Structures are given as C-alpha cells and as structure tokens.
C-alpha cells in the first residue's frame, strides 16, 4: 500500500499524541495520586440500609487522627446528611466519602471541584479528599433522578478545628 510521505509524518504525530495522552493520565494516577472511583466500596442492600452498621446512621465518623469517614445516602431528591443539614467535617482533615443510593442512580458532586461520583443503588462509592481551609461547599446531584432532580442539592461545612467537637461527629 502506497502511503504518502506527509501521511507518514501525520501518522507518527498522531501516535505520539495518543501515547502522550496515555502517559500523562498514567502519571496523574501513579505520580500525582489521583485515585479513581473503583470497586473497593463493595456492595450493600439498597432496600435495607437501615440495618447497615453505618448507613443506618449516616454522617461523619472519626477513624484516626485527622481522618474521617462520611457516610451519605442519596435518594429522590435529597442527601442524608447534606440536604436538611450540612455534612460537617473539620478543617485540615482527610475525609473518605462512602456514598450509596436508596432508590435510583444519583450523582454526588462537590461543586467546583473534581470530587464527583455516581451513587448507584446496591453499590458503595468511596472517594478520599482533603479539606484544608474552613469554608462551605455546595453539593449537587448531577445525574437525572426524576422530576424534582433540579431540587436535589446540599452542602458541606468545613468547620475550623478550634470549633470542632465530638457532637459534630455523627450528624
């Protein structure tokens, strides 16, 4: 097959671009440590979340020095906790979110950040993020979940460490 010289140059450039993309993503995963949502969260019975050791009382749990687990249930059309009261975590902490759904597929997006996951019934999404400064973050559902989808939102309150106390641990 006759391939023109310019075609060969273009082909080489295209392959270089592709390999370059894969390399930068690999670096992001290994070097910069950007973790993917994966299968580590395991499964849960979406119809019996009230019997689950943590999802029966969702909220913030302390797991170590400056380390916390936050369990969140997404359901039509609110987050528990998050909607009727904010999720509370202390500043300068490392927080692992465990998110699941009680009904349909939802999204869980911390607005303006790359902390973003799907909430799938029967599955638990886990993602670990670091909160440094005290501030408030918005929370929204970014997967269509029914006719009041646009009303599904909430917030995360990052509390200054000096104001943090144990009563805030479980919301």
């Amino acid at each position: 097959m006759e391939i023109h010289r310019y075609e060969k140059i273009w082909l080489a450039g295209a392959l270089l671009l592709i390999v370059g993309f894969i390399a930068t993503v690999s670096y992001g995963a290994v070097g910069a440590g950007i973790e993917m949502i994966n299968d580590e969260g395991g499964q849960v019975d979406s119809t019996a979340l009230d019997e689950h050791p943590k999802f029966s009382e969702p909220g913030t749990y302390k797991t170590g020095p400056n380390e916390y687990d936050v369990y969140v249930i997404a359901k039509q059309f609110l987050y528990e906790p998050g909607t009727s009261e904010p999720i509370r975590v202390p500043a300068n902490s490392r927080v692992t979110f465990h998110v699941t759904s009680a009904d349909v597929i939802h999204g869980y997006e911390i607005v303006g950040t790359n902390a973003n996951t799907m909430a799938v019934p029967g599955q638990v999404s886990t993602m670990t993020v670091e909160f440094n400064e005290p501030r408030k973050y918005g929370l929204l559902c970014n997967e269509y979940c029914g006719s009041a989808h646009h009303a599904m939102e909430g917030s995360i309150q990052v509390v200054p460490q000096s104001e943090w106390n144990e009563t805030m641990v479980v919301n």
Partner: protein
Amino acid sequence: MATFVDRYPEEAKVVQATLVVSFISLGIGAFFGLIQALHRTNVLRVIDSVDYYTVLTGHGVLLALWFTIFFLVGLFTWAIVKGFDRPVPDIRLTWAWVGLMTTGAVLATTAILAGFVPEIPMSADVLYTFYAPLQAHPVFYIGTAMFIVGTWIAGADWFLAYRGWRQDNPDERIPLQAFMVLTTMIMWFVSTLGVAVSVVVFLIPWSLGIIDTVNPLLTRTLFWYFGHPVVYFWLMPAYLLWYTVLPKLAGGRLFSDPLARVVFVLFVLLSTPVGIHHQYLDPGIAEGFKFIAMTNTMFLLLPSLLTAFTVVASVEHGARQRGGEGYLRWLGALPWRDPAFAGMALAGLMFAAGGFSGMINAGMNINYLVHNTLWVPGHFHMTVGTAVALTMMAGTYWLLPQLTGKPVYSRPIGLLQVITWFVGMVFMSNAMHRGGLLGIPRRTAEPQYQNFDFVAAVGSIGEIRMQIALGGVLLFVSVVIFLFNVAATWADDRVDTPVDDTIPEPLSSSSGAPLVLDNLALWTGIAVVLVILAYTLPLAGIISDAGLFGGSRGFSVAFSLEWLVDATVAAVTNVSLDSLAGVAPVDAVVDSLQEVSR
C-alpha cells in the same frame, strides 16, 4: 442525464420515506431543544420544570436516535445501491424494515409524549439513556427494541445485496461506499447486542412485572457497551459523505481510497471495547478495567486524526484544481457558496474542536472535573449535533435532488441555513463547555441552587446563559429554514439534470489497498475478541457482586406527593421552631399535611 431516481425509482422511494421520518423527528426534536435552551437559562418558561424532563427525553430520543438513524438508513441504502450499481435484493424486505423501524419509533415517541398528559397513565421520562431503576412504560422499551431489530434487518438487507454482487463480481474490490456501509453495520451488529440484551432480557420483563428487580449497574454497563459505538454509528454517515462526496464538491477527488478503508476497519475494531469510559465515576468497576477502556479510547483517536488528514488533503487538492494557490490562500478558491460544501466543511471544522473536548473527556482523571456537567452536552453538540447533524443537512442539498429529480429550491437559503447553524452552535457549545468547567450540571431544569453560587473566572454566569439561549434560538431558526427549503424542493417540478451526481475515482485507487482490508470476516472476528477481552471480567464482576437480576425494583420518575409533603412539613416545622412555636395554625397545617401523606 439519468440520476438515482431515474435508475432506481423504487429504492429512491424508500430513501425518501426514511428522510421524511428523519426530518419530522428533526423538527420536533429541535423545537424541544428551543424550549430547553430558553427554560434552563430562565429567558422564557412555557413549561413546568417537572415537564422539562419529558421535553429532554423527547429531544434526546428524537434527535440522537430517530433523526440520525433514519437519515443513516436512507443514506446507506442509497450508497449500497449506487455502490454495487444494482437494485436491493427484494424491495419488500426493504419496506419491511422501514415499517418496523418506523412503528417502533412511533410507539416509543408516543410513550414519551404521553408524559405531557397526566390523564394518560403512560410516561417515559427516563432520558435517552434510560438508566434503571428509573422505569418507563413498557411501550417505550418495546418500541425501542422494534426499532433496533429494524436496523438489524436493514443491515441484513445490505449484506444480502453484497452477497448478490459478490457472486457476479468474484474478483472485484468492494466499492468504497459499500465497504463503508458494511463495516459500519458490522460494528452496529456487535455493539447493539448489549442494548438488546439489556432491553429484552431485563427491562421489558421488569417493566411488565414478570421479574421484580434488575441490577442497575449491569443494565447501565450494557447500555454503554452500546452507547459509545452508537456515536460512531452517527458519525459514519458523516464520514461517508466527507470521504466520498466532500472532495468532489470541492472540485477534486478523494486523496486515498486505501487509507479510507483502514480508517473504517479501525472503527470496527475499536468502537465497542471502550464503553466503560462513560463509567469512570461508577462504583463496582475496578480501576484497571477503566484504564483499559481509556487506552482503547485514546487509540480510537487515530482513525479520526487520519480522517482529518485525508479529508483536508482531498479538499486542498480540489481547491488547487480550481486554481487555488499558496499555503493557505487555496482556501479562498473553494466553492463556499455551495451549501452542501460549506455545510460539510463547517461541520468538519467544528468536529475538530469537538474532538479536542472529547480527548479531555477521555482522560480518566481530568474527566472527574467535567463528568455530568454542562461540558458534556457542549461536547456532543459539536460532534453529533454539528459534525453529524450539519453534515446530514448539507448532504441533503446534494442528495435530495438525486432522490427526487428536483433541484434544491434555493441554494442561497441553504447557505444561510448552514451558516446559521454553525454560528448558533459556536455560541451555545462554547458557553456550555465553560459552564461545565464551573460545575453547572447537565440534564437539569433549574440550575439555580439555594446552597451555593457558580462562580465564573472569565465573563459571568449571566453571559454564559445568554449565549446558550441565543445559540439555541439560532439553531432552531436554522432547522426551520432547512425544513422549509427541503419541503419546497419536494414540492418543485422534476428537471433533467437536478445535480451533478458523479463521484470521481480517488487519487490513490483501491487497487493499492491490501486485499486483507476487504476480509470482513477477519475484522469481525478480531472485533469480537477485543470485546470479549474488554468486557468479560467487568461484566462477570458486576453480576457476581450484585446478582444477574440485582435488587432494584422500579422507581417512578413522577414527582411524588409524599416527597412534596415531607419537604413542606420539614420547612414548616423549621419555621415553627424558630419563631412560631405554639402558634396553632402552623401545627394544624402540619397535621393536615401529614394526613395527606398518609
């Protein structure tokens, strides 16, 4: 000079019929798009936000499935008949799949539109991705299944045509346009298997109550097994036109036939084992499988980058044939007043931009910033919404005269139409991309939230919204002009030579292409192996984790009264705690609301 309709009048009728269905879908779908663009930017609200999702489902299904695919089956029928230069094997079979596809589309559309009428106990506000456990009326799933089976019969029809041609021409190379149709259909057969299993084995029995529960991650994964190849199914008709028609319109000929074949073979191989890249944020799928899908996706850039080279080289060749000179001045020698050429060229230009935003989507980690934000519809309005849709509209200006024997009603109006589309999409898609970077979600009626504001680094949220609204209006106007021009063409009188329909031989002809490229069985086999490699382990994991039929019963999309009551009770209770404690009327309201909820 005899054109297509003179030589194959029966086939021309079939193609005209599929185009009629396609363009009716385009008109309705575009009108829904206008309502959405004005509603979510708060410019004009003619519907309830609750009905927004009925409109959105209609917009997605009518444009992304009916408009594109009915156009595709018409174009492919034309390409097969013209390519093999013989009639279809049996015109009754051809009409059968047209009828089946149309019936399925009408059924599914009826289920969607019934969502506007509360009195009819039928709705399908599940969007075109229909993720379970949101549940639609069974008629929606049954109609969709009929539509897909119709496309399978269409594919079988074209392979039968190929078999007939091959018996008479044992040593010839498959004509290029027919080769493109056949390879595209191989990809389609492999990939629609996923959605067929999802709909027929799980969603139809589940919506009818024969099975109680489904595994939402399984049906979602099966959807995306089909959901990425479908974008190439949309794109391949545009590629067919860019490779075989655009160079001719530019005044030249295709640069390389062998390279075009290589590109289509690459799409057969790589289109399907990539669907998990739509699920980078899904739990229950290990990171390794996501990485494999990403690697395949990145290599899928190769055929599109090769296409960019070949198509631009062919167009440049055409310009130089027309007397164009210099490094870039040849661009001025192109036939920019021809709506068919201008539309396809502008579509190709925007596809380059859409390709770059697609590369960002494909990046596994940067995707977390844009997943399910307005960035994503910004991206696919450049690709399917312009590269495909504008190429189809522009191609119509060249194709319709061959199918009807009538010249295009007005070429200047056609030119105005394609330019309006391009300008409208520049406004809308750039603003959507920017809005997505700020975290504004897609698929949402009301992007104004109580807990936070979106902050724009450059420009403002208001300016982004105005660009989306303006773009949406221009796009709708463009569709109205297009439908007018097409209808007026149809109403016109036949002439002897409505259009120059010859397609010149490529510069590098098919004789230079290795024979193995035409070995369709080989490519099918490799494609199947790649799919098995990419999907066996993830699917096995999903099934062993949560069961084949999972544990999710169906959930209605409907605005539940119970939820409304709960929210109101919570709001009223909060108020009463703060300032109205003990005020009797408030308690009475709470009591009566709780009564309603029981």
